[in-house]
């Protein structure tokens, strides 16, 4: 008797339905979502593994089968937030024609994310700086990437050749510090309210006040 092709064979029921790696990935995702909330509300220094496992309703053994420890869990949560944020920002900025329009679109999307997901914003902007040397290194590396995205602004600027070498990193740092202050002070509520100031911080060094004001009015 001929054997059934694979696609007509019945799918086995029960725990073997999904590969172990897939089940672990789902479990890790769920714990990272819970851990994000715990870290944001308690702060990294004030969070313990017990807090996370309690909130996630798992055993300590399950936690350590998926993460090396508190720091590993935190850094994975942070990287997840950054990756997903970058994807949304890239999509928002893609249709823009000029550098300044791309920056405006990217800022709008960033501020919308901060307003919609304040706990994730707290992880990405505040707690990342409280989580030790490894976390700080990742934060600094991401600041450098923001700086890299700003560098094309020199081509749109009439004074591009005169701008200091540290401008991009300084501007990226200034923007992040501005956003961080809003989160710390609990003032990150309205993306629309923050947009003009945030855009001013980033593009004014390249375009000057008049062109920046025009961009703000049209963006």
């Amino acid at each position, binding site marked *: 008797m001929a054997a059934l092709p694979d696609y007509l064979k019945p799918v086995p029921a029960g725990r073997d339905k999904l590969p172990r790696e897939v089940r672990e990935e789902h479990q890790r995702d769920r714990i990272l979502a819970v851990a994000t909330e715990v870290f944001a509300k308690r702060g990294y220094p004030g969070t313990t593994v017990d807090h996370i496992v309690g909130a996630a309703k798992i055993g300590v053994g399950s936690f350590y089968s998926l993460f090396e420890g508190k720091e590993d869990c935190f850094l994975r949560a942070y990287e997840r937030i950054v990756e997903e944020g970058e994807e949304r920002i890239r999509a928002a900025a893609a249709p823009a024609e000029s550098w300044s329009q791309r920056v405006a679109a990217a800022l709008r999307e960033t501020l919308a994310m901060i307003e919609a997901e304040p706990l994730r914003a707290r992880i990405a902007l505040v707690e990342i*700086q*409280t989580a030790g040397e490894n976390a*700080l290194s990742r934060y*600094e590396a991401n*600041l450098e990437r923001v700086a890299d995205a700003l560098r094309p602004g020199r081509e749109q600027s009439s004074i591009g050749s005169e701008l200091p070498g540290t401008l991009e990193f300084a501007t990226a*740092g*200034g923007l992040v*510090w501005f956003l*961080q202050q809003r989160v710390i002070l609990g003032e990150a509520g309205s993306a629309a309210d923050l947009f003009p100031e945030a855009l001013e911080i980033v593009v004014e060094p390249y375009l000057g006040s008049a062109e920046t004001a025009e961009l703000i009015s049209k963006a």
Partner: protein
Amino acid sequence: MIDVVLAHGNEGATVEAVIDRAGVDEDTFAQHFDSIQDCILDAYWAHTNEFTVLVQAAFDREAVWRDSLRAAAYAAARYMRDNPRIVRFGTLQLFQAGPMAQAARESHLHRMVDLLDRGRQELDDPSSLSRGVAEGIFGSIYELVVRDLQSGRGTRAATDFVPEMMYLAVRPYLGQEAALEELSIPPPPEDRDE
């Protein structure tokens, strides 16, 4: 206190570690501080006040905002150059020390933002720029300091950054020409900081 935090991190900053390092007993510690957190904040405020008095005095010596800011910037940079341990404690470590310490740090940093924000009075219409511009400028300076601390360069080059920082600070309020001039203005003599 600062030595203990820098050597052992915030988690290692216990009363036992501090009294061991200071060569005092627990009763003596308790006479001065309610908790280790109290001690951390006390150490922070002691050095912050010293820094703020120095920077404010330099700022107040000059009559024009731009000159005041430059004098304050060099006073701040020289303090950072000469006190890298304190700068590391007040930036990286203090931010990791919990909400009370973070709040203390933020209130101090905003006093520095105030000095920058006075630049708006140089404009024909001070309301044409937001305080956010001063915050962004301050944040730029702060992140450059932290980057150097993280990279191991410490605060040795703090004074080298001042011309570029003055460019960033002056440009929104006084324009490109004034900002470019800042890149070639030499530092004031060091004894003026005293």
